[in-house]
């Protein structure tokens, strides 16, 4: 590459596929760039930018479809807006107005398609709720079972003491059974209390998180 005119001419040829506005902008920028770098830095700049073909194809990949990049303030409703992104495509209108219209469109769309996603959402919520309740029930069942087992174990032990004088062997057998049941009761109590204390708050937090997701900036929104 001998001089900047040649380089810029080659670059111009590379950018033919772009909209005229994009071509002008890029050409203006790189003409400025070479002028500001000065003749003495021409070789350095060319080495850094690469061949006109390479630079041109890089610019083309960036601007061929001219996607309107997501604005920061749109992030909140990003998941809802994916469907209507095309309408705000390259628009010069104020952002507020556009996003307001988009939200309205999304709401109308959501209402119209309610028969489709409604049952899915409801059944999903039902499953979550059912799991939640069953975990709580498991915890309570563990505690109630523990109380019953402890009661049975204690009464068996007492009964075996009473029966000791009349039927010693049976009494010892039932004492063993009583202690075994007591042990089971303690295990059940530990399991039940653990379920209630550890698991239930975690599940509640998880559900709260999932419900909050659509309102967060997270891209992986929930069902709603």
């Amino acid at each position, binding site marked *: 590459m001998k001089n900047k005119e040649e380089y810029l001419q080659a670059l111009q040829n590379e950018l033919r596929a772009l909209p005229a506005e*994009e071509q002008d*902008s*890029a050409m*203006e*920028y*790189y003409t*400025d*760039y070479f*002028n*500001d*770098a000065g003749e003495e830095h021409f070789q350095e*700049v060319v080495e*850094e*930018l*690469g061949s006109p073909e390479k*630079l041109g194809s*890089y*610019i083309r990949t*960036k*601007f061929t479809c001219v996607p*309107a*990049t997501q*604005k*920061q303030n749109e*992030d909140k409703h990003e998941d809802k807006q994916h469907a209507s992104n095309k309408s705000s495509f390259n628009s010069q209108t104020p*952002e507020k107005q556009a996003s307001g219209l988009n939200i309205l469109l999304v709401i109308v769309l959501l209402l119209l398609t309610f028969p489709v996603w409604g049952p899915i959402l409801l059944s999903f919520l039902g499953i979550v709720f059912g799991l939640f309740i069953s975990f709580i029930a498991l915890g309570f069942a563990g505690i109630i079972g523990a109380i019953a087992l402890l009661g049975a174990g204690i009464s068996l032990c007492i009964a075996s003491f009473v029966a000791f004088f009349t039927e010693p062997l049976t009494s010892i057998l039932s004492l063993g059974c009583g202690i075994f049941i007591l042990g089971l009761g303690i295990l059940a109590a530990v399991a039940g209390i653990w379920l209630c204390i550890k698991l239930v708050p975690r599940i509640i*937090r*998880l559900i709260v*998180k*999932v419900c909050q*997701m659509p309102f*967060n*900036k*997270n*891209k*992986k929104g*929930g069902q709603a």
Partner: protein
Amino acid sequence: MIFFIILLTEVYYIPYSIIMKITTSTGMLDSVVLAIVALEADGTYGYKITQDVRNIMDVSESTLYPVLRRLQKDNCLDTYDVAIDGRNRRYYKITSNGMIVLDQFRHDWVLYKKSIDKVLFGVEDEK
């Protein structure tokens, strides 16, 4: 997938959206360019921006134009031409919208830095 992300954010306390915003290459570069343009009250031009950015980051010269153009389209930067040496030089100046975007990034950066510090150095702050 949702549960996996919840687990990560729950265990490490790193907000998911911030991880995504900063680690995508554009977020950081955009903000650095915005900050550099914001330093010049009277605006600055492409070649100088490129040199300033390359003083602090290892980026190729060719990546800067798309960034500037995108920021311009997002109403973060304003351009105007100034006659110099018998030609026009294009100047860039930050807009009020650009200021807001930059401020948001500063805010995100503080949070991000804190959580990375915590992971790398085990610094436990009041949580």
